[in-house]
């Protein structure tokens, strides 16, 4: 079959026809443009979110579980209020008893104001940690050192600060060995965390880490903290959860029928919520896209039917000169696909511009396959909705067609 030369010839015919009615082609393609733009924006947003969420989870620590007084996605607050607090000392017991834990760190967090002599920042995230937090949460430092075992055992007033805090408080001098005021207490900066970037428009670099002992003494009088426990691999997370539950139940001396009086929380719980949210974004986007592609497709079908009627005598001529049915059908199918692909290209351009604007609010990401997908899918819509008009053109009798002038 001379398929390739026919394809080239067919495309040339299609573009000749398109150029003849540029305005009409652009207008009819609007529905396709809206559909493709919606789908692509949806995909870029979700891809961007996925990337950012992965970043967020590295902040929470990978392969980690949080042993807490609170179960994260349980709203039975009254029952949970009766639970005993999770104390810092528990971290030591878990470290001794657990076979699977790679690292264990107590962890508490609160919001306090942070200031030096010239600047004051309100509502800064202040976290109390131990030296093991370096392992559980894969912390990387730009300057200085992390909080040490001695800092924790001697209850020292030292701090590792996030990059954002450093930029805001110490724009001219280096942050190391500077004094800062955290919630009314003096701390000495010993380390500077590497830059983390932004997530959901929020600066991830605005935080202060202090020894957990100083944290409970100054900011958590009840002594209620979480215990971060890291598994060696993701596969061991399930086993680790069972082990921790056993250890906790033993330590808490719970009977076989007593419910847990603690929570073991994991990222997968956040992940599930996240999936539900993005799932509904996807569903909504798919519905909008489907409707606009349907409307666009019907528009294309309409314009192709008009085109077939307008060019009846051309079809008759082509048939008289030896065009077979499939050649005529092919010509109109290609034309329909080309109009839609044009709409797809416009859609890609709009979605690209849109994703650049949205990037200011939420993270977006548009890889090359998304572009190909947009244009290809639009062309498929064109072929589908072009089928009926093309068949109609192909079935015209050459005599009838030639008679129209």
């Amino acid at each position, binding site marked *: 079959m001379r398929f390739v030369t*026919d394809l080239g010839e067919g495309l040339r015919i299609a573009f000749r026809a398109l150029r003849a009615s540029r305005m009409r082609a652009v207008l009819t393609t609007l529905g396709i443009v809206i559909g493709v733009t919606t789908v692509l924006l949806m995909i870029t947003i979700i891809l961007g979110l996925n990337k950012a969420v992965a970043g967020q989870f590295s902040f929470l620590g990978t392969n980690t579980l949080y042993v807490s007084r609170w179960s994260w996605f349980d709203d039975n607050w009254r029952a949970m209020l009766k639970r005993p607090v999770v104390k810092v000392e528990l971290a030591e017991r878990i470290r001794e008893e657990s076979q699977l834990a790679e690292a264990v760190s107590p962890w508490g967090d609160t919001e306090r104001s942070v200031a030096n002599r010239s600047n004051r920042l309100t509502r800064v995230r202040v976290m109390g940690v131990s030296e093991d937090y370096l392992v559980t949460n894969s912390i990387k430092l730009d300057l200085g050192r992390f909080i040490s075992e001695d800092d924790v055992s001697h209850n020292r007033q030292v701090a590792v600060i996030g990059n954002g805090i450093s930029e805001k408080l110490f724009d001219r001098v280096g942050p190391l060995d500077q004094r800062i005021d955290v919630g009314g207490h003096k701390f000495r900066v010993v380390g500077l965390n590497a830059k983390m970037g932004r997530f959901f428009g929020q600066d991830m670099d605005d935080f202060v880490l202090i020894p957990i002992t100083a944290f409970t003494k100054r900011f958590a009088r009840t002594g209620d903290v979480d215990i971060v426990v890291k598994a060696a691999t993701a596969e061991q997370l399930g086993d680790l959860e069972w082990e921790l539950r056993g250890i906790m139940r033993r330590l808490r001396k719970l009977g076989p029928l007593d419910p847990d009086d603690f929570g073991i929380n994991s990222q997968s719980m956040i992940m599930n919520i996240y999936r539900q949210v993005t799932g509904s974004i996807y569903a909504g986007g798919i519905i909008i896209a489907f409707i606009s592609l349907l409307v666009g497709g019907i528009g294309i079908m309409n314009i192709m039917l008009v085109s077939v009627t307008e060019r009846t005598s051309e079809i008759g001529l082509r048939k*008289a*000169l*030896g065009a077979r049915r499939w050649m005529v059908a092919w010509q109109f199918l290609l034309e329909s696909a080309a109009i839609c692909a044009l709409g797809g290209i416009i859609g890609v351009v709009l979605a690209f511009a849109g994703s650049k604007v949205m990037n200011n609010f939420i993270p977006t990401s548009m890889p090359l396959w998304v572009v190909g997908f947009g244009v290809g899918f639009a062309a498929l819509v064109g072929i589908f909705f072009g089928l009926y008009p093309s068949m109609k053109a192909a079935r015209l*009798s*050459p005599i009838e067609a030639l008679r129209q*002038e």
Partner: protein
Amino acid sequence: MSTLSPNGHLIEMRDLVKIYKVGSEQVHALRGLNMAIGSNEYLAIMGPSGSGKSTLMNLIGCLDTPTSGDYYLAGENVARLSDGRLAEIRNQRIGFVFQTFNLLPRATALHNVELPLIYAGLKASVRHRRAKEALAVVGLEDRMHHRPNELSGGQRQRVAIARAIVTNPSIILADEPTGNLDTKTGAEIMKIFDQIYGAGNTIVLVTHEEDIARHTGRIVRLRDGQIESDEMRRA
């Protein structure tokens, strides 16, 4: 393969009947027509409207098939061929010239002439060469990049004639080729027909003008779907 009919003609029609259904009525457009056309013949088909001459032209041009009867074209009975096969026959064997020229308005003269060669599946380089040769025959090689709206009526019809001869067909079928032209231009077009007849082509003209028919060597007159007279001239 023989390129002639069983009785040695380029075209032979036996008992051709064509019946159209118009609503509930049947219209007998052709009532058992017999005719033969030899190679390198130049003939005119004449007749008043309703005589069946358009029907006959459509059948000769393989645009339609008869209700019954046989039609041998270049040795092949084409009376009952499929749609697709008829398209091939039209492409290879027939060159059409229409009263209204029927050029693609947005394509150049060259592209218009190339059109049948595209459907024949020829390479672009071969197409260009042959289309240019055909345009040279009608004296338009210097106009090949012009579009129809940049050409006069006579020039447009010459492009159409070039398109008809470019495939080297068995027969050139012209339907009122001068009907939309003034007398002087019509005479020029007829001169081209005379010239391509002289080069060995077979030409069938459908016309109602005696002046035009007089260019040919044979006039077939139809009435009520049958041949009224078949007159050889300059024999």
